């Protein structure tokens, strides 16, 4: 009897091919390459982005000609020269700060210009609200009348804390009280416009309303005046806290008002633990704070908020729309030629470039629908547009259209997988077609719907081009959701992380300062999308468990 084992002869290349092993290798290699690329890209973004917040040493550079500079080493570049003497030239980039003195934060130095570099202990970095960082030496502190030297670091901490407290008070008043009063005054203004345009009222009635409004306005204005007075008081207090005497690397001395200081730190004195704590502090600031200095400093909270709000709103619109469409296509219409055409069109919509959706959104949503709403309901406010301009509502509807095909297709896939027996079983018990859908089928396809939503979120969170036309701005003063009734303002414009990357990276005046922020924002965007996806996936997996049945 022939043996069951393979002989040497059979273990040949043809046998290998017969097993299909060569395909396994090809596929595995392809997957490996993809993984490497993805990990590489994400790794690059994360390292560069999150590395931005790490405290670097500040070096003191002595040039050949004796001048001293203070700065953080950022980058090194080698360039090839035609010089016979040396093959390449090295250039080193330093962040030297003190923009009000040197007009640029960053400066390139020739490698051979530099005689030596040291890392003095006394170097202080002062983050300021204007003009960026200052690098230098603190000689003394004047605070609330008293003078403190460098041997009393506690005093500096106390002073900065006091400044911080005042700032917070100012911030609260500005955001809450002033914001509210402004909003109320605006409402009164709109009300007045409305009355003016209302033709059903006669002069006497109108005057009565005007009088009421005037009365209200007066009260609010008075309140506003009070708040402003207090605010001014605080501002004055802030200005008068004191100042720090600061010596730059060229021995120029200046005074930096305490009120302008965000924070002070001594980088060369900080050990790993200090730096780690500082890192998290800066990271937290990045996520929570508003931006400063034309988006080159501070945090990006409004962009995060805008992105998340946009995605949530889009999900809110696309889910019912997609489900209902899919159910209609599969359950209610006759499966004839027309339905097939519709289905093909839906599938092809997924391939339309997103900028086309942006243009469509602008034309249809913003101008046509927004314009109509303005004419019908807000005519008193014209020619100022209320809804007839790009805003959150139109942006989310545009993205809804963009991701609709994905949701429809996934839902239809889910519907296809439901065995006919389940439907018949329900009908045989006396349910109507709608009851079958509502009670049995929709719960059963919820995992597929969630898949559709996951894909929709993934697509929408990364789109930037259409949003630029329908609602995203570089800097938005208010958030779409705030404490003023009606609390959700869909007629406002908003900030978006994707757009922020584009704007900061390519539209900002200070390229070197912007670069690390671009990476940081990109890393954050990836992280948020990941978070949204993981949440949805967990929900979907729970639903799958529940309805695991089918397989």
């Amino acid at each position, binding site marked *: 009897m022939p043996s069951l084992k393979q002989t040497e002869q059979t273990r040949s290349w043809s046998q290998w091919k017969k097993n299909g092993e060569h395909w396994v290798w090809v596929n595995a290699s392809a997957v490996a390459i993809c993984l490497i690329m993805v990990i590489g890209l994400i790794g690059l973004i994360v390292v560069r982005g999150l590395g931005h917040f790490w405290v670097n040493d500040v070096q003191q550079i002595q040039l050949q000609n004796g001048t001293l500079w203070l700065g953080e080493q950022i980058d090194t570049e080698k360039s090839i020269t035609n010089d016979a003497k040396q093959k390449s030239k090295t250039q080193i980039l330093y962040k030297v700060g003190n923009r009000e003195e040197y007009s640029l934060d960053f400066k390139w130095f020739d490698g051979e210009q530099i005689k030596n570099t040291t890392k003095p202990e006394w170097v202080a970095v002062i983050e300021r609200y204007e003009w960026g960082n200052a690098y230098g030496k603190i000689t003394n502190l004047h605070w609330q009348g008293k003078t403190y030297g460098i041997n009393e670091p506690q005093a500096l901490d106390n002073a900065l804390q006091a400044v911080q407290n005042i700032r917070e008070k100012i911030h609260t008043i500005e955001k809450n009280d002033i914001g509210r009063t402004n909003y109320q005054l605006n409402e009164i203004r709109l009300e007045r416009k409305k009355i003016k345009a209302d033709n059903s009222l006669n002069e006497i009635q109108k005057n009565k309303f005007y009088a009421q409004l005037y009365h209200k306005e007066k009260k609010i204005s008075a309140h506003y005046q009070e708040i402003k007075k207090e605010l001014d008081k605080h501002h004055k207090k802030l200005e008068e806290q004191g100042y720090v005497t600061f010596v730059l690397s060229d021995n120029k001395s200046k005074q930096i008002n305490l009120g302008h200081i965000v924070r002070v730190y001594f980088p060369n004195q900080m050990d790993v633990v200090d730096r780690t704590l500082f890192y998290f502090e800066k990271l937290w600031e990045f996520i929570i704070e508003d931006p400063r200095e034309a988006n080159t400093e501070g945090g990006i909270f409004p962009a995060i908020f805008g992105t998340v709000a946009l995605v949530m709103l889009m999900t809110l619109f696309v889910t019912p729309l997609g489900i209902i469409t899919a159910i209609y296509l599969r359950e209610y219409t006759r499966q004839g030629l027309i339905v097939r055409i519709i289905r093909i069109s839906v599938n092809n919509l997924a391939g339309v470039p997103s900028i086309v959706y942006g243009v469509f959104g602008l034309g249809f949503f913003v101008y046509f629908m927004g314009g109509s709403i303005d004419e019908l309901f807000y005519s008193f406010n014209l020619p100022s547009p209320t809804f007839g301009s790009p805003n959150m509502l139109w942006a989310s509807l545009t993205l809804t259209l963009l991701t609709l095909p994905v949701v429809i297709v996934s839902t239809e896939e889910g519907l296809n997988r439901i*065995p006919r*027996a*389940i439907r*018949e*079983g*329900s*009908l*045989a*018990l*006396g*349910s*109507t077609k709608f*009851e079958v859908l509502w*009670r*049995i089928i929709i719960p*059963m396809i919820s995992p597929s719907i969630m898949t559709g939503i996951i894909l929709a979120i993934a697509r929408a969170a990364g789109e930037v081009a259409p949003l630029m036309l329908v609602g995203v701005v570089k800097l938005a003063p208010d958030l779409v959701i705030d404490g003023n009734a009606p609390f959700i303002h869909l007629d406002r414009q908003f900030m978006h992380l994707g757009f922020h990357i584009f704007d900061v990276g390519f539209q900002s005046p200070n390229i070197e300062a912007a670069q690390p922020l671009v990476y940081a924002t990109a890393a954050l965007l990836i992280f948020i999308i990941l978070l949204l996806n993981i949440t949805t996936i967990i929900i979907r997996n729970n639903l799958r468990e*529940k*309805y*695991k*049945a*089918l397989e």
Partner: protein
Amino acid sequence: MAAPIALTTKNWCLKYGKTEALKNLNIEIPEKKVTAFIGPSGCGKSTFLRCFNRMNDLIDNVSVEGKIMLYDEDIYDPRVDISILRQSVGLVFQKPNPFPKSIFENVAYGLRIQGKKNKTELQDTVEWALKNANLWNEVHNRLNDNSLSLSGGQQQRLVIARAIAVKPQVMLLDEPTSALDPLSTLKIEELILQLKQDYTVVIVTHNMQQAARVSDYTAFLYLGELIEFNETTKIFSTPKEKQTEDYITGRFG
């Protein structure tokens, strides 16, 4: 047959498009007895069965002629509410098809559709239905478990419980044990013999021994026609028609 009649068909015809599937069927199904439909594949028994609760309405190109009466009502009368009809005439399919819900919710489904919400009422009816389907003892302590954790035979009994929870008058069983192992099959057959005390049962089966064991009356259908209808004992000992004899002895079909 002096027994009162639950279902009557008069010259019943059914067509799929142009193809005649059921030809001029006249049958009287006695109340509270088990009637079996037997016949070779494609003879129309399942199609015929589904006419009794109008499940064939779901298929697109079906056209029907004739009358089917449930007691004294024409079930194809346009004024008939199909939901009410289907709760009066329950249908159990060949492959058990419980919903992916808990055991309790499966049985309560029909009741919820009727609009019943009272918790106690639901619980009582579910318990009663499961007891009558001979499933209570096996599941009473895990009513909230997913119905798909039950075995095939238990699932089929669950489906039967689900059908009887809405207290129908007639139970239609379309090859209810084809997908089950022999032991579960026998359990279901026992159940059927119990059910006939309260419901009229019509069962379609490929298995002639099953028809012989379980039914009081048997109808032999061939190519859409009713060849013979009689008491089961007579059909299986001395059938009148040669076609019937040939089929049940295995000479064709």
